[in-house]
């Protein structure tokens, strides 16, 4: 394989694994627990910024970019910190917005939160370098491993893949556990769940934080690969790419969500990468967004439960219920 082809394929693989992590986190929140988090990408953004500033090293007045909390932590720590930062932020946001509110209010608050978060990141220039964003974030362990960039990309793909598998196992474990059943019950009828003594607010908050941590890790792994991050990378429509992936793949079905991650974010990227620029710069991107919108509408219309619908719960019939009365 030529070098360029290797770069291309390993990059796509890394994108796929990162998108899978992100989609699984949102699927846990939205598909399984029914929390409408329109600010999901903001939590990805927070994770990315955290990982970036913690691996860029302390800010220096002569630096071309300025940020707070700069540090030079060794490899896995920035990612862990990113998950923690995103989780803490989720906790704060969840405590404020998940109580008592009708779900459409929550959706609105989340959407507005996402808009505001980009606004603050762009305008508070001292925080994370404003609209220009952060750049030259080092590849983790690149110097220590001593590999060529191509080989390093393959190693990184393996690392992202490992995290994707771990995320999948974790999310799948929750989905299929008694907790997962409770969450689905809450999603389908929260009053009935509350009547059975489940703390609806507590459960929602917990899943909101767990999803937030996954979002943070997703952002961290992404930013350590692409090495740059700015407010333009996490505008609010990006959340709807994840939503589109879930709706296409199959709400509340983790296998489906992974297929969705392959088809929507990665599929779009690959399908449009080789398209020639027609009319003017930016036309293709505008059309991509139109297609994301149409895709969402088409799936909601023709196949609202996605390509791989949620499997209905199966209960092993008890022996006495199965055995027929003696003939």
């Amino acid at each position, binding site marked *: 394989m030529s070098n360029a082809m290797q770069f291309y394929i390993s990059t796509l693989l890394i994108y796929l694994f990162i998108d899978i992590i992100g989609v699984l986190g949102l699927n846990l929140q939205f598909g399984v627990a029914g929390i409408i988090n329109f600010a999901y990408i903001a939590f990805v953004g927070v994770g990315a910024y955290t990982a970036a500033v913690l691996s860029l090293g302390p800010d220096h007045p002569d630096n071309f970019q300025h940020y707070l909390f700069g540090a030079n932590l060794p490899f896995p720590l920035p990612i862990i910190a990113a998950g923690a930062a995103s989780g803490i932020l989720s906790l704060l946001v969840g405590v404020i917005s998940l109580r008592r509110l009708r779900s459409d209010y929550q959706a609105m608050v989340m959407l507005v939160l996402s*808009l505001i978060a980009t606004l603050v990141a762009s305008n508070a220039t001292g925080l994370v370098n404003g609209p220009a964003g952060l750049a030259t974030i080092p590849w983790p362990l690149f110097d220590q491993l001593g590999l060529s960039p191509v080989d390093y990309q393959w190693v990184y793909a393996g690392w992202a893949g490992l995290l994707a598998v771990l995320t999948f196992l974790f999310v799948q474990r929750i989905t299929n556990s008694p907790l997962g059943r409770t969450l689905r019950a809450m999603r389908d009828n929260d009053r009935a769940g509350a009547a059975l003594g489940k703390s609806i607010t507590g459960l929602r908050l917990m899943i909101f934080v767990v999803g937030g941590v996954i979002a943070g890790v997703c952002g961290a792994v992404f930013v350590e690969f692409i090495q740059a991050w700015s407010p333009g990378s996490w505008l609010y429509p990006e959340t709807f790419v994840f939503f589109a992936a879930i709706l296409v793949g199959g709400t509340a079905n983790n296998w489906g969500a992974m297929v969705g991650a392959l088809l929507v974010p990665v599929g779009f990227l690959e399908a449009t990468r080789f398209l020639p620029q027609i009319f003017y710069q*930016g036309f293709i991107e505008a*059309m991509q967004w139109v297609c994301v919108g149409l895709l969402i509408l088409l799936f909601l219309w023709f196949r609202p439960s996605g390509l791989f619908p949620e499997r209905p719960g199966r209960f092993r019939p008890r022996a006495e219920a199965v055995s027929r009365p003696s003939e």
Partner: protein
Amino acid sequence: MSQLIPAIGFGLITASILAIAAVGFTLQFSVTNILNLAYGDIMTACAFAAYVANQAGVNIWICLVIASLFGAVFSFLLNRLVYFQFVRRGTKLFGMIIVTIAMSLIIQNVLLAIFRPTFFSYHASQGPSYTFGSMVFTASQLAIIGIAALAMLAVHLLSTRTKLGKAMRATATNPGLARSCGVATDRVIDAAWLVSGALCGIAGVAVVLNTATFSEGTGATFLVPIIAAAVLGGIGQPYGAMLGAITIGLASEIAASVINPSYKDVVAFGILIVVLLVRPQGILSEVAAAKEVAA
């Protein structure tokens, strides 16, 4: 202090535009129960409709009327061709929010594809300036305030003095009961989309007249204070939305002059959060409370 009074002047103009937009948003939501997050993009579409007419040499105030008609027809068709079809197919509350977001992405990016990513402005003179104390208004800003006042009066008269307005309020409170009392709720819903679209169109042009330039994302950004004003007033409450618009408009412009102009929307958002914490049903909230029981 010297900054404060001009800021109040700006606040009045912002509040006027917000009031038009927020009343349209909340009216349509209360009657149809669809949270239309494409509202901001309809505003942009109306602003572009006025832009096209304006480029053809039409006076800006006639363009405003054109934009208003365009908004009414656009909203009406959007509901009839897209939203209503999904509702009839049984798409639930959350699904409908996603549908409106998808429409928002589509409208915004079709506009981007047609008009290209640059900034646009109208051919319109701001007219002579008038000074009231230390507040300075241009003629067109005064006109915006006047139009907002007229629009609010019209909404008030519509909802209290006409049969349509009463039918709208009945549909908003309890659609099933309204239907069994002989209110043609489908027609009322159509009317709500027309009225809200017309207000949306006026607001779209007014925003551009006030800020001078616009692009395909202008309406989507303006959605933040609209939602803040509507929620502040108790969603589905036209008078609440007016009150919310005045609060948000004044607060954000004063904050802009005291702190930093970039933080206008952040202040609006801060108010929104505080309101949701303290009084999630909004300031005026009978309908919202009734809906909660029904939902």
